[in-house]
């Protein structure tokens, strides 16, 4: 009410109006925790809240400082890195970064990583989606067995079968190129479960209608089901990007030191070598972090929201 009064009045009070808004925020911050607004009058609560904020500031510092530090360290040359104890470099010399980018062939590994990510997204969406479509909507005779087996793989750790998987890849001669990495994204139990849950919530009448209109099951999938499932498609795409970008164990075994190595494989090999320049390793770390961080800040809300819902279901 008061705010309206200020806004309706003459020019001079516009300032008042914004000042009032500020005061209002200060006076009644939304409290969602144990400490409620009615506690604020109790002696000691203010001090307690101050402690809470100090601890939160410490948390932010602990979470972000290492990232900040490595970016700063990347500006240092090897001699400075090994002698200086200052956080900031003596000069913000971008040529350190550009030299590493050029000399270590990171641009090529970047490109390879993008290939891996792109193919993984395609496989993750189409293959897992079609399997989930079968399990959730088509439900042919015997689908329950597949559903159970998928749940089983959700529970069994992937790394356990790393050795026989590596052998199989060698046997069929898929090593040395992206195929195993792309196809592995198509066998993700977690994605199948996410898709399946979403498909089951779709209105069945639409699917039935498309069948009556003469769509084949496959057409229904690509033209009706997938377009209706945009939210889950976005989420699975984001997860796939992160996973495909960050994975290094299977890519290392499959691609090794070949021309197709990804950023993470490159970083892993660098980190295991004793003779390598530490400054180059740290700069490669920075390069490897850039795409996930960009992705995070673009899709921040989607990613964090989903971490919650997925976590609760899991």
């Amino acid at each position, binding site marked *: 009410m008061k705010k309206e009064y200020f806004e309706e009045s003459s020019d001079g009070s516009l300032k008042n109006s914004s000042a009032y808004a500020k005061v209002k925020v200060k006076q009644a911050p*939304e*409290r*969602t*925790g*144990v*400490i*409620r607004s009615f*506690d604020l009058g109790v002696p000691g*609560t203010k001090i307690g809240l101050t402690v809470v904020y100090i601890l939160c500031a410490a*948390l932010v510092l*602990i*979470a*972000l400082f*290492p*990232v900040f*530090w*490595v970016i700063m360290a990347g500006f240092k040359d090897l001699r400075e890195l090994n*002698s200086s*104890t200052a956080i900031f470099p003596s000069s913000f010399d971008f040529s350190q970064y550009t030299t590493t980018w050029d000399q270590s062939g990171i641009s090529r590994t970047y490109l390879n990583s993008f290939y891996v990510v792109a193919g993984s997204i395609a*496989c993750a969406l189409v*293959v*897992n989606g*079609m*399997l989930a479509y*079968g399990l959730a909507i*088509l439900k*042919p005779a015997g689908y329950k067995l*597949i559903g159970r087996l*998928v749940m*089983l*793989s959700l529970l*069994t750790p992937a790394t*356990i*079968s*790393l*050795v026989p998987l590596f*052998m*199989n890849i060698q046997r069929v001669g898929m090593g040395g190129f992206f195929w195993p990495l792309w196809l*592995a994204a198509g066998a993700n139990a977690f994605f199948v479960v996410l898709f399946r849950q979403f498909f089951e919530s779709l209105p069945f009448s639409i699917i039935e209608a498309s069948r009556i209109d003469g769509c*084949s*099951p*496959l057409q229904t*999938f690509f033209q009706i089901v997938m377009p209706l499932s945009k939210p889950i498609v976005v989420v699975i795409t984001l997860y796939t990007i992160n996973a495909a970008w*960050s994975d290094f*164990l299977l890519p290392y075994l499959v691609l090794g030191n070949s021309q197709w190595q990804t950023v*993470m494989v490159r*970083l*892993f090999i660098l*980190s295991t070598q004793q003779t390598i320049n530490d400054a180059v390793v*740290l700069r490669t770390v920075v390069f*490897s*972090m850039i795409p*996930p*961080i960009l*992705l995070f800040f673009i899709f921040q809300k989607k*990613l*964090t929201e989903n971490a*919650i819902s997925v*976590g609760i279901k*899991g």
Partner: protein
Amino acid sequence: MKKIKSRGRDKLKYTLSAWLIMLPGVALFIFFQWGPLVQSVQMSLYETRNIELVRFVGLDNYISVLKNHVFIQALANTFSYTMWSLLIGFFIPILIAMLISETARAKGFIRTAVYVPNILPGLAAIILWKAFFSADDTGVLNILRGYMGMESMAYLSEYQLVIPIIVVIATWKGAGATALIYMAGLSGINPQLYEAAAIDGAGIWQRIRRITLPAIFNLGSTLLILQIISIFQIMYEPLVLTMGGPDNASLSLMLLMWRYAFGGGTMEFGKASAVAVLITLLLTVFAILYSIMNKRKVTWE
């Protein structure tokens, strides 16, 4: 009669086309998930040379793995990882979630900042922390020690410290995401409960003990078991940070499996699979314990 027949044929056609749609997925699952799982067991019973199974040797692989004193150490280390992870990794996310829930201003910023470590590629985060714990005078923690007038220290070569340090690093990486889940749990608490408790004279600590903690108890027990299962498979961190050293002090069971398979250039896949099967058996025990706990949870409510 003809109609029924054609309906039967339609149904067959439908089933076939449905399975055809599921086929790529099923095939990939067989190749990448179910097949390797079965092969793991099979391979553990065979002598292997490179990628070939040479001959059936029964439980020989298991016996030689179990007789190796390194296995006992890796097992003990893995339990040590688990214990430290319970001490450090379990409570910190709860604390973070409760702290952030108490803030009113800048909540979104704090939440985002705490989540950032989680989005970094795991390998990049580990190498980053390797530089922090570097034994040189310019390792970040040694710089801090220098300010306090202490000698530099080779953290990752300390027999007693190496496992807790690795757990701290893993916690730094994962705590933000776990805290986010707890925050969702906390925001589900009915505020009227707090108000009613306050009217009844409950102070802030009492409200935390009687309302907040019981409310996230179920969530906590689920996340606890998931955490145990994941820390039990710890491998990347010791592989990159210490290679299992010093003197096998940070060797985990999974890393032992990696060593048998890809470590020494010998490619002892049979023994590696035996270790993998043993890990799976141990994890199955945890899973059974979890389901028992889950049953009790229902009655608790």
